[in-house]
């Protein structure tokens, strides 16, 4: 695929196979990171941000619609995580569920503080569309899937995003990345297996 096609499809610039993220992956669980944040560990806070920032921005965009306000809400969410980390109790639920609740509360609080009306979860959908329960379910699924994507090695995460959301065929992806088509399929298979392991609860 030539550069012109890449520009037309608004692709990200090609990333190197290896990255700092790959070789310095933090093996701590989310719950462990939250406990460290509660102790004032700013490195753990940054790692938690790396894992969840896109998920938080995703639900903020669903909830608010406006990109600038959603970005503010994302930062508000992490400020809230910093302040309330000591209140997280692993015995009462998964870390990702707690973070999801903190994010939703921070987004709603931000809207209330600015006296701005909340936007429907799915403003882009005309009737008939999903009701509130469906929208909440979709938000939760997106949250879990986007978080799971962050657990993949960089090269597999990029590949999944290209395969599902760039509009490229597998052959075009192979050409774009400069790797054999068979390798694209092998890596995609590996990525989906990892996601299946990570999202075991969602598959049940």
């Amino acid at each position, binding site marked *: 695929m030539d550069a012109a096609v890449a520009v037309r499809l608004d692709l990200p610039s090609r990333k190197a196979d290896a990255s700092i993220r790959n070789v310095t992956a933090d093996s701590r669980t989310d719950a462990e990171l939250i406990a460290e944040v509660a102790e004032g560990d700013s490195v753990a806070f940054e790692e938690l941000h790396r894992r969840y920032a896109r998920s938080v921005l995703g639900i903020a965009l669903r909830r608010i619609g406006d990109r600038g306000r959603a970005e503010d809400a994302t930062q508000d969410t992490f400020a809230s995580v910093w302040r309330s980390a000591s209140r997280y109790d692993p015995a009462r639920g998964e870390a990702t569920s707690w973070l999801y609740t903190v994010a939703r509360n921070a987004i709603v609080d931000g809207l209330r503080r600015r006296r701005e009306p909340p936007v429907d979860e799915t403003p882009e959908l005309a009737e008939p569309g999903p009701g509130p329960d469906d929208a909440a379910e979709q938000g939760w699924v997106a949250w879990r899937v986007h978080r799971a994507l962050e657990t993949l090695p960089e090269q597999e995460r990029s590949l999944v995003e290209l395969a599902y959301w760039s509009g490229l065929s*597998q052959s075009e992806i192979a050409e774009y990345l400069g790797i054999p088509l068979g390798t694209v399929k092998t890596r995609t298979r590996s990525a989906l297996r990892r996601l299946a392991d990570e999202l075991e609860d969602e598959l049940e």
Partner: protein
Amino acid sequence: MSGPRDLRDLVGDELEPDELERLGRIHALLEQAGPPPELPPSIAHAPAPPSERVIPFARRYRYGALAAAAILAVALFGAGYLVGGGPEPEPVERLAMEGSGGATAELDLFAKDEAGNWPMELRVSGLAPGTYELWLTREGELAAPCGAFAVAAGETTVPLNAPFKLKEFDGWVVVPTGSELPVLTT
């Protein structure tokens, strides 16, 4: 654009039926979730964690902080209307700071850049030689550090930076490095 039409096109045909069915459910979840948003540079990193350190504000400092909060709020509200220009940037606001023993300072705030940095210039005089830190405060507590600087005899001028949303704070203080007792307040 919607996701791929055929999972087999993505992963090949060599999978066992059970495995294909399992990956098929992940395939469906990915299509249901849609793409995660890209992070803009402005939120590519976690916000600076606020400090929880508590400082013993004397009563006069508390009143000073309240007054500073009002001044700061008004000043920052008006700052957006000011237009910089010319070869030398003009501060959008100048804050006066005072301390015991005749120590004084002026803090110039320059226009915030796209990343959220507020460039500043601090001019201090009357402080004992040593190293100090400038902090933003919230409700009588040191809340966010804005840099350290050294003071010798006479007046000292240093550039500093506040990469924070200033409206979330209510004042500024200067403390000696390692101390929580303000020697200058707005």
